[in-house]
């Protein structure tokens, strides 16, 4: 195990896309080749082989919108849950700590696909929630646990001396956390949170099993009627790639800005 206080300990080897690093400049970076290549391929296919490629591209946009809704709704909720869970995990209060730890252990031990099925079909018998809400809640509950661990590791990575110094200045525990620890931890946890976001975006395709008409579901509906499986999944893969590359760039830029302000 590496030293839990070193920032390197929180950089998880996640499922995230190739998040550009700062040295990654120049015209032919992997990111540019992939991004321009994917958009170019999509445009060329639609232009030169409109049947079925243009038809597929016309069929899926409302699915892209649903994928965005699920992803953005889930990440917002997951960040809130994750912050609470992460703080709970480092709480000296044994009840709070126990609850947060139990949540993280249980959720991390159940596959997301099973959770989505469970929240929709099993709990659907007790509380009636629309498919989209159910999808967002399922994704958020799952990723809240992962983000909780990122938050915990981020806070623990800040040297203890910082808290001691804050106490020496007469700050309470809460004040020290809010004014000294969290602002520093934020910089540390941002990259892994970015990874989680990209992973969540891709995992959102799992919600297509509960009749949420997301990008993948729309593609499957098109393929099931036209039997154009190869063409449809080519388009679906490229559209996902464009979206994830776009967001990974955005996250990279935010990170760069934070580092610049250092």
């Amino acid at each position, binding site marked *: 195990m590496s030293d839990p206080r070193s920032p390197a300990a929180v950089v998880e080897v996640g499922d995230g896309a190739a998040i550009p690093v700062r040295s990654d400049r120049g015209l032919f970076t992997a990111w540019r080749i992939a991004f321009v290549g994917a958009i170019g391929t999509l445009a060329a296919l639609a232009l030169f082989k409109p049947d079925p490629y243009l038809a597929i591209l016309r069929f899926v946009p409302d699915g892209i919108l649903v994928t965005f809704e699920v992803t953005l709704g889930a990440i917002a909720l997951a960040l809130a849950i994750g912050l609470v869970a992460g703080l709970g995990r480092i709480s000296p209060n044994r009840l709070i700590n126990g609850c947060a730890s139990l949540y993280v252990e249980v959720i991390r031990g159940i596959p997301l696909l099973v959770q989505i099925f469970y929240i929709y*079909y099993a709990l*659907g*018998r007790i509380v*009636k929630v*629309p*498919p989209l809400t159910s999808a967002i809640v399922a994704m958020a509950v799952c990723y809240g646990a992962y983000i909780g661990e990122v938050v915990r590791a981020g806070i623990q990575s800040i040297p203890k001396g910082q808290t001691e110094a804050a106490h020496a200045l007469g700050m309470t525990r809460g004040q020290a956390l809010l004014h000294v620890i969290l602002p520093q931890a934020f910089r540390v946890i941002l990259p892994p949170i970015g990874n989680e976001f990209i992973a969540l975006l891709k995992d959102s395709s799992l919600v297509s*099993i509960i*009749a949420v008409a997301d990008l993948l*579901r729309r593609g*499957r*509906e098109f*393929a*099931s*009627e036209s*039997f154009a*499986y190869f063409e449809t999944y080519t388009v679906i893969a490229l559209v996902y790639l464009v979206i994830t590359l776009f967001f990974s760039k955005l996250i990279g830029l935010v990170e760069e800005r934070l580092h610049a302000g250092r």
Partner: protein
Amino acid sequence: MNRIIRITPKLIVTIFAFALSAASGPAGAAGKSYTVATDATWPPMEMVDANKQIVGFDIDYLTAAAKEADISVTFKNTAWDGIFAGIEAGQYDIIASSVTITDERKKKYDFSAPYIDIGQILVVPKAEAAATLAGMKGKNVGAQIGTTGAFEIKKSEGVALKTYDEIGLAFEDMAAGRIAGVVCDEPTAVQFALQKTEYKEKFKIVGAPFTTEAYGFVVQKGNTALVELLNKGIAAVKAKKQDEQLRAKWLR
């Protein structure tokens, strides 16, 4: 560590005997063994029983027809969504999964002769007043993805289609009150709406089937030899009136 498989002379003899029997089959298409894909989530046509065996009307029918045509078949449970892509890719030789013969499908795949006629039917909660699918305007109606039931809902103006990977999930969603109806093949509708105790209290079948469709076995485009074998088998099954026995066994 204990041995898991002990290599005995008996085992070697068994393996050789098996290899020989596999190699010494008659030449040509007859006598050959074929893999059959079926989505065993569509009772009573194809389903998995308590012993994890794939059973149902289609299974018995194809097995009987294969026997008549002197070929052997092994069934493989395959998800419906993508079942056609699999035959295109040559992952199996035949689909026996309540496949309706449609013009669109005929363009891409070859079909055997029809072996049974079936219709689509609407299932709704008991309180629903609509008497037809067209009467479900403004409501969500569910079907399995890529089925003729889904295509019928899509054709009905103003009715919103919700697609599911398995028809059971659509019925479950209706039981939870999230959709107003389900469209599927009549035998399957009967199985879910009238035989499953929990659904029996909640659901009713609306009228009679509103389409007439013929099921066929699907093979790769151009595999006429296999189509001929299947047709020979189907004709023999019909001539011997075995199909009527199967109807009595599986269908109400």
